[in-house]
């Protein structure tokens, strides 16, 4: 594996990344650098610009200005290369309920050009790793919320992405299911030596899962650091809640469009 040099470049790098929707600046000159191999949490209230950032990084949405590279590839100039290097679990449900877990995985394997010889082995491996072997032939619509999420993570990992993006991965899950998803994520990170970027507005998730955090607020970066660093910056006995409150001051306390709420609720309902 000598031809395969370990990248020293950051997994994600953005420079003055900006996205406007009409008058609204959803993401405002964002400078972000995410080192390879860590679980990075993008924390912030609804409407802080987290999902917009992820959509730009996953090539779903062109930036209005600024640039971003993911795994060394520019999201605007080399979208195809970026897509090969990333896995994405959107906030909404992306597994197809009318197909079985196995078929969902097979579709991903084929779309990502996983070599035919390796497909079966990788799918079996993924099913086992995610604890879905017994449910592999069942229709996904019969899965519980936690199972759906684990399947989606498995789909996103089949092609061994360099960077995995997860948008609010545990929204609508009950505590037991959340813990299972977190555990799988932590393990897969080590196993595949990849970088994970998650967005969340949940303190627990940020604290338990992430190595580093960036707090976004009104489209801008309010603070970055490890959980401990951030707490220290606020005060000696600060909780992450306090950190959040400190850096997200002055946010419109009621961010998030109606659509967000409906989406979240629909997601919660389908998962739940």
């Amino acid at each position: 594996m000598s031809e395969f040099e370990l990248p020293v470049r950051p997994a994600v790098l953005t420079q003055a990344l900006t996205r406007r929707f009409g008058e609204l600046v959803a993401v405002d000159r964002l400078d972000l650098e995410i080192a390879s191999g860590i679980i990075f949490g993008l924390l912030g209230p609804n409407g802080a610009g987290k999902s917009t950032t992820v959509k730009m990084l996953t090539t779903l949405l062109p930036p209005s200005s600024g640039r971003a590279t993911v795994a060394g590839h520019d999201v605007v100039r080399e979208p195809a290369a970026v897509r090969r290097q990333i896995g994405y679990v959107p906030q909404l449900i992306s597994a197809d309920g009318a197909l079985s877990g196995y078929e969902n995985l097979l579709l991903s394997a084929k779309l990502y050009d996983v070599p035919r010889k390796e497909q079966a082995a990788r799918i079996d491996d993924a099913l086992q790793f995610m604890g879905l072997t017994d449910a592999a032939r069942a229709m996904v619509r019969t899965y519980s919320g936690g199972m759906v999420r684990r399947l989606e993570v498995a789909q996103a990992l089949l092609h061994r992405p360099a960077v995995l993006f997860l948008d609010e991965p545990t929204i609508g899950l009950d505590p037991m299911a959340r813990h299972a998803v977190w555990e799988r994520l932590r393990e897969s990170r080590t196993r595949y030596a990849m970088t994970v970027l998650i967005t969340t507005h949940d303190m627990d998730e940020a604290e338990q899962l992430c190595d580093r955090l960036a707090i976004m607020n009104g489209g801008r970066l309010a603070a970055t650091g490890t959980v401990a660093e951030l707490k220290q910056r606020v005060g000696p006995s600060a909780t992450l809640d306090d950190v959040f409150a400190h850096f997200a001051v002055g946010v419109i306390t009621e961010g998030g469009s109606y659509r967000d709420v409906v989406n979240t609720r629909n997601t919660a309902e389908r998962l739940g």
Partner: protein
Amino acid sequence: MTAPEGSPSPALEVEHLSVAFGATRVLDDLSFRVAAGTSLAIIGPSGAGKTVLFRALIGVVPSTGTIRFAAGTRIGYVPQKLDLQRDLPLTGLDFLNARADVSGVPSTDVTRVLNLVALDSRFAAQPLGTLSGGQFQRLLVAFALMGHPTLLLFDEPTAGIDEPGKEGIYALFSRLQAEEGLTVLIISHELSLVYRYADTVLCLSRWRTFLGPPLDILTPEHLQEAYGAPVRYHHHESRDTD
């Protein structure tokens, strides 16, 4: 807030309530009472029948057992799921005025409820789709408050709303309770907020049901039993997370 047990004037009494869909028993012999002017939080894992309980209370789902409301009870209901179409050309005011018209309430009531929930009439004049999560929740509460209800049923009021927004919604309940003397039933997953704002907690699960003040119910043992997994939540007052 008065203690719920043995309170002289219950706003709602439920005795031996059962709901079954075919062979599946969703609620089994559930009994509880809610004192007037207090708040009851209903928690529990998915599928424990929380929403079904509400639907049974408003009579959309057939049930057995007794449901007794205090005389003159008017129910305001905010459902969990509102699968609205995108781009619906309806404003918050259209929606509230429609309720005023249907319920025979004078249209001045619209101003009253908007003031109560502290929603600026500028926002109320926008299409429903452009309201923020918190604003839309306030609008739904306003809708439920039209015509002076005495009992408010709230299904997952803060799903998908961020932390500051959640605080705002719960603070609103506290205020409504104090100002309007409302009795409030809330279904929620937000244990830390339940801890701060509810007078009584009803914990539903497939195995057991617990009822009591938050301090007694929201213990790690009870929660583990109900959810089948360790559950943590932040106490805001006491700084110990766990």
